[in-house]
């Protein structure tokens, strides 16, 4: 279907179902139960899941296929956000021109940086992209304040021209009148499920982005990129110039980042310089590797994993902990709180760091490999039913050995 092989269609189907039913899947606990703390089904976080999923899918097209480890992709995300907000400021709150410009600007910017950085490979390439991204961040934070509004972040003022904004259109980013921040809530017994326009708008882009990624992975172009990863020298000896292919991959992933940046601005029209910092670039690297580099679904899982931690674990404070363990005798309750305390709330970085280490040490193929191992336990006899991601994860495990 859609020009895909059967197993890819299956994978796409899984992604479609997961994204469309996310408001249910991510809210498994009734709103007034103690476990509601772990619910992630509110619009902002769901939007972040899919937007950073898109970002990571794009990054994976470069890193997963060609093996070029870029430490500067956050810069393209930032450029996308700034372009989108400028469109809101100048034209109107309609998201279409904003997203178009975001993708185009990120594409141009990545073509420029890619053209220079791809003259080198290995760790030199990483440092080059890191240097470019850090430069962009430093400039955006201070020197380029007229364009980026520096520390505060670029935002929309009532005094902005907005030449195409009609009087009755919503004063929030919208798609021909459907505002991104409007939502409908479904109450079902103790549960509440929120369906947000913005989320479904992003979800459609995620599905498209995922579909495009599958097509790229399975195309001759994708094959060429894999060949670059396995042995670039041999490619060069056969008289093939690999640069255009790697540059194309770099620009495509840059445009994915630009789209993600544009969507971030469309969900929340303010672009901060911090989203260009090197730690933000590092974050997408972590997402991809954590999920499983070179696999299709891995980066999306990795993105969800990290954003979940950042938004859910950071909000667990001592008060909440005491609530959880209130049923225990006082002494044990305090002991339990004391044990868990360093790992949640202000200590969420510690948990994240530990989990990174554990995943990298024990699951070199990322979460996807973990899933496969689990799967193997349950289906030991059925050896033919290899997982849809088996080959990619397999290759990665081999590379790691």
């Amino acid at each position, binding site marked *: 279907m859609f020009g895909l092989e059967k197993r890819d269609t299956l994978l796409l189907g899984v992604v479609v179902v997961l994204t469309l039913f996310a408001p249910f899947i991510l809210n498994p606990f009734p709103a007034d139960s103690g476990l509601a703390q772990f619910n992630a089904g509110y619009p902002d976080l769901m939007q972040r899941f899919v937007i950073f999923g898109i970002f990571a899918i794009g990054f994976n097209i470069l890193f997963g296929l060609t093996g070029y480890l870029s430490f500067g992709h956050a810069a393209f995300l930032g450029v996308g956000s700034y372009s989108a907000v400028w469109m809101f400021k100048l034209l109107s709150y309609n998201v279409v021109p904003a997203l178009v410009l975001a993708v185009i600007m990120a594409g141009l910017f990545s073509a420029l940086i890619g053209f220079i950085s791809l003259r080198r490979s290995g760790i030199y390439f990483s440092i080059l992209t890191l240097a470019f991204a850090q430069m962009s961040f430093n400039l955006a934070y201070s020197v380029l304040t007229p364009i980026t509004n520096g520390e505060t972040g670029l935002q929309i003022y009532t005094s902005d021209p907005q030449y195409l904004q009609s009087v009755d259109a919503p004063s929030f980013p919208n798609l021909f009148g459907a505002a991104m921040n409007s939502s409908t809530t479904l109450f079902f017994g103790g549960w509440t499920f929120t369906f947000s326009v913005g989320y479904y708008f992003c979800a459609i882009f995620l599905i498209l982005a995922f579909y495009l990624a599958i097509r790229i992975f399975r195309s001759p172009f994708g094959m060429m990129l894999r060949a670059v990863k396995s042995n670039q020298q041999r490619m060069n000896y056969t008289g093939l110039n690999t640069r255009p292919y790697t540059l194309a991959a770099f620009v495509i992933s840059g445009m994915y980042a630009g789209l993600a940046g544009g969507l971030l601005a469309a969900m929340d029209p*303010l672009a901060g310089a911090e989203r260009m910092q090197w730690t933000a670039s590092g974050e997408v690297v972590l997402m991809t590797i954590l999920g499983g580099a070179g696999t299709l679904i891995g980066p999306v899982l990795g993105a969800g994993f990290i954003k979940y931690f950042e938004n859910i674990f950071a909000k667990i404070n001592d008060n909440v902990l005491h609530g959880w363990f209130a049923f225990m005798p006082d002494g044990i309750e305090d002991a339990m709180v004391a044990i868990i305390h360093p790992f949640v709330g202000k200590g969420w970085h510690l948990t994240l760091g530990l989990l990174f280490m554990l995943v990298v040490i024990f699951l070199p193929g990322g979460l996807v490999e973990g899933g496969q191992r689990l799967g193997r336990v349950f289906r030991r006899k059925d050896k033919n039913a290899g997982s849809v991601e088996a080959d990619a994860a397999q290759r990665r495990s081999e590379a790691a050995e």
Partner: protein
Amino acid sequence: MSFTKLTRRGLIQTGAVAGAGLALPTYLRAENHAGFTNAPTGSTVTLGFNVPQTGPYAEEGLDELRAQELAVEHLNGGGDGGMMNTFSSKALKGNGILGKKVEYVTGDTQTKSDAARASAKSMIEKDGAVMINGGSSSGVAVAVQDLCQSAGVIFMAGLTHANDTTGKDRKANGFRHFFNAYMSAAALAPVLKNAYGSERRAYHLTADYNWGWTQQESIAAATEAMGWETVENVLTPLASTDFSSYIAPVLNSGADVLVLNHYGGNMVNSLTNAVQFGLLDKEVNGKKFEIVVPLYSELMAAGAGANVQGVIGSMNWNWQLQDEGSKAFTKSFGEKYGRPPSNSAHTCYVQTLLYADAVERAGSFNPCAVVEALEGYEFDGLGNGPTLYRADDHQCFKDVLVMKGAENPTNEYDTLEIVEQTPRAQVEYAPDHPMFAGGDLGKCNPGA
């Protein structure tokens, strides 16, 4: 989030309710009927405390959080009531807000605009917070204020000192109790004139971003007005950790005062470096060399250690103030946490009380009613003397403290001493002052 204690019995009940839920009729609701965002329906109301818990300002965030927890305790009638007893308004009765028990959720701003907005959004969208309070930088304050404006909740800013927060970026749903760069300059100038004379040559080192620029502009204007000359203004990158290359040329510039427009880690390092270079032991133009740090904070002063001795700066509030409100607050904070509160803790505590009081007086949680109750509101008893929340820009006007690094601190908490309490009249300015121009409050937004 709910703080319902999860007991075994509760679990069974929840399970039963959940089971019953399957049989219950379900209904859809577009969020347009409640009248305003997150109108509290049950017996509780949720406030959102959004402070830095990771990154360089984590310690300050922690202190803000302590104060906010204390405020909630007092609002719900616990503890000794703190400043509620000295507050000029008697609307608060210690039974929560409008009879609803106060609950709170916390989040991590990471001192990044993006993360702060994400955290605030989750409080609004997931936990149903009606008010967001806290924060430790102006960039974050402006970003979250903008978010609260469009989401239709009230933002009570924490520590934010840039003029823009209630200037160019002012918003109807946002309120700032903390003072700003202009007020710092206005309070400092006369003291500096008294201490160091009116013929001084100042060398400015300025953090190269929005807050740094507004502060430098304010200080330069105020000191030049009393006769000082600004020799040079050097912008320093935010990421700097070692300021030696910026401080080394100061001595040869002919300047005899160094103004450090830095905050946080930048300020600790630049001040430490300046003292290392022996600037304070030098004599230039026949006068003793001096250093000025326009914005002080106790935590940062502690980080700089003995280097703050004799250095003048300004603060919003300090626990050594002797009015009844400050004494009551310091006492209840000190007894609970074993340390005196910082000025950012004070601001967050006061902001929480002010919000609760405004709701009580308005008789509604509706943001527009709260805005109306706070605009032009005169109060006293919360430290800093009689205070006004000005309607034009939602900036508080009150006395400003000029501080000096203590020469002989008796314990680890009195590293700074109060030099002067500059009266409110001296730091006031017109709402359309050029440094604050270009802003527009807009209309209050109740959301939904």
